[in-house]
């Protein structure tokens, strides 16, 4: 019975140590990701990046758009979404990234539109 207790204790220690290591790695990874994202972005953009989980720059790279042109975004998105569809043998993971990139760009467009509207209102008054 004592040996059983010892075995359980050692097992728990091993599990605990592995868990702590995983936690630390996860934390470091999220820190690195946050640092990579949060450069030269307005506060609302930074918040959007954090919520959707992808930075503006990365979203632009994925969808291959250099400017925030809605038609170009939509065209690229439709093509990439269709090409990576599971029924054609594409990778669902890549399709998800395309979807998230589109979400991020949509959010950025929304933020920009709101900012422009506020600027317009301020200019009027």
């Amino acid at each position, binding site marked *: 019975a004592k040996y059983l207790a010892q075995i359980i204790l050692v097992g728990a220690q091993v599990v605990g140590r592995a868990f702590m290591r995983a936690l630390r790695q996860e934390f470091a*990874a999220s820190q*690195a*990701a946050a640092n*990579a994202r949060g450069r030269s972005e307005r506060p609302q953009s930074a918040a959007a990046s954090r919520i*959707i*989980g*992808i*930075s503006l720059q*990365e*979203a632009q*790279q*994925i*969808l*291959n758009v250099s400017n925030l042109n809605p038609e170009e975004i939509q065209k*690229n998105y439709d*093509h*990439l979404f269709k*090409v*990576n569809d599971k029924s*054609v*043998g*594409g*990778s*669902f*993971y*890549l*399709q*998800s*990234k*395309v*979807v*998230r*990139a589109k*979400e991020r760009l949509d959010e950025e467009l929304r933020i920009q539109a709101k900012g422009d509207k506020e600027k317009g209102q301020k200019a009027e008054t």
Partner: protein
Amino acid sequence: MHSPVIPYPSISPFPPPSRVAARLLRPRGGRALRGPSCRPVCPSGRPVVFAPPRAVMEGAAASAEGLRYAEYTRAATGAGKGQAELDRGLARTMIGLGLGVATVAFAGRYAFHLWKPLEQAITEAAKRISTSSLSSYYKGGFEQKMSRREASLILGVSPSAGKDKIRTAHRKIMILNHPDKGGSPCLATKINEAKDLLESSAKN
């Protein structure tokens, strides 16, 4: 002839025949000198009569204690005289249970009155959640440093696949996402990176 020294309250008409038996019947540990509600036993060892009014007043909070006490007396006294204490313990449990059921019923009735505005709030939140992030797509962007798991997901193969499988999967996905045909160069880079990572650590 004086009654034998039995430190816990029991009015047994059949005293244990010997000291040894008395010690055996006495419960182990500190419990020997205290009743469950910390009612002191007279130091002379004479059995103390159970005090009913306090038992009734203790109500729901002591129902658990009552159960424990019922078990304890039953284990201690065996046959016979544990019955009275058992009944009291049972009564306390019943009172506790009844009070619990009453509170749950009241809470339910109250919640029923408040249901309609709550329901609206809940459905709105659910709709917002479901439309903001389509449920089954993977979240977030690419990882900072590509991992084997991500590489396997990109190519759509298992992480322990053979080199041939990796190569065929890579070619298929690359043809679909080719930059010259309107794919994005970033995605093409990621696909190549995934293939290199998996191939370098593949077995055969």
